[in-house]
């Protein structure tokens, strides 16, 4: 299992700087926003956390579709399906590797971008925390979509169709927890705990669904 984790990490570093491209995309999206809404710092600092979350969501979605498709195209998936190792475990480890290579860098880059959006220190911390807790959920549920779409030719798009509606709650609770941390009356913990619950829930459901989809889609 560790060998799988290491292999996937190696692959994403070696195959064209996966992490770098994800972070760069994130930064570009954030940099585009002031051009549209104007350089008004107050406004920017208000929508800052939301923009960060949208950017992170998009960046983690865009690479996801290759999670199993690459394995399928070169035949590795067939071999993984045949092993004694429970498929659920294989899926989970692949998700972890994917998140470490492309989700974690986003979390780490978030504070820098938060500064650009003139977000307060507290809000930046809250954004980082919610991203840290929330992005794994996107990867995990994305894995299920990627598995469903693995046999489809234009999987990339389909994954998002399947995953986006499921990712919306993550986004909403992530964003509202962040705002709750900043604005006084709203309590931070309830939405944050819900976010954690969603992540844990997806950590179970995502790999299970993905494994089932992979089994049945093999042909």
């Amino acid at each position, binding site marked *: 299992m560790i060998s799988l984790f290491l292999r996937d990490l190696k692959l994403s570093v070696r195959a*064209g*700087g996966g992490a*770098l*491209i994800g972070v*760069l995309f994130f*930064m*570009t999206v954030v*940099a585009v926003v*002031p051009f549209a809404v104007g*350089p008004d*710092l107050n406004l*920017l600092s208000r929508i800052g956390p939301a923009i960060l979350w949208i950017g992170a969501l998009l960046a983690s979605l865009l690479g996801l579709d290759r999670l199993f498709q690459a394995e399928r195209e070169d035949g590795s998936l067939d071999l993984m399906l045949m092993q004694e190792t429970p498929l659920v475990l294989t899926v989970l480890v692949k998700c972890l590797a994917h998140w470490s290579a492309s989700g974690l860098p986003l979390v780490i880059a978030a504070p820098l971008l938060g*500064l*650009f959006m*003139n977000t307060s220190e507290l809000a930046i911390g809250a954004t980082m925390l919610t991203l840290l807790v929330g992005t794994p959920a996107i990867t995990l549920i994305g894995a299920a979509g990627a598995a469903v779409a693995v046999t489809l030719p234009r999987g990339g798009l389909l994954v998002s169709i399947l995953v986006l509606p499921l990712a919306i709650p993550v986004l909403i609770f992530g964003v509202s927890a962040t705002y709750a941390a900043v604005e006084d009356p709203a309590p931070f913990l309830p939405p944050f705990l819900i976010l954690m619950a969603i992540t844990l829930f997806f950590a179970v459901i995502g790999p299970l669904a993905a494994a089932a989809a992979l089994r049945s889609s093999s042909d």
Partner: protein
Amino acid sequence: MSEQSLAIRKFSDLANPTRFLGLAERLLPWFSGLTALLFAVGLYLCFTTEGDYQQGETVRIMYVHVPAAWLSMMCYTVMALSALGTLVWRHPLADVSARAAAPIGACFTFLALVTGSLWGKPMWGTWWVWDARLTSVFVLFLMYLGLIALNRAMDDPGKAAKVSAILILVGFVNIPIIKFSVEWWNTLHQPASVMRLDGPKIDPEFLRPLLIMAVAFSMLFFTLHIAAMRNEIWRRRVTSMRRQAARNVGAVGTGMEGPNA
């Protein structure tokens, strides 16, 4: 050997990477020594000169911020010249130079951004504003990163060279925007006071360490650039030798003879 390939041979001699390697081997120790010396002097001056009556101690940030900002633009200019070299003269070292400069430029731009922000917080009361100068420097940073990502994603250097050369040249419009943004738009940022047509307008007390640090940073850039170019040439040799190895094994092993032999 045909006439044409002879011509290719001859042309390539002019830009012989092996000659470059020899040169680099000889230059590098001198360059690194000089850089270290300049930094020692520069840093000493940085911390011994007086603070500004208006800005207090924070003026010392200038000695890092301004050279880093200059270097970030100079590095891109070097890359743009190299890109011209790739496209117009097809000079084989030009592509190596552009590729080696990108990470260095990204680091300097990063430094300018971070030190600028660290200066902006006490001076302007905010880490960042989306004014023309700051935005254009951020765009420069993104362009560096984009070029690095592109180079890393394309494993065939020949193919990456052309594409990134075009991108570099397109992106060069950003450089005058950075330089003159403070004059074209009114921004929070300070207008130029050293690099002006009518001579510097800055107290020599600050000018001396600033200039020495600027020279030190430039030497640092040249040293690193030469070393990185050397690394890049080695990297390409490794790649080419590996392909060769794959082919040789095929030749030595089985299957050298065709089916209808």
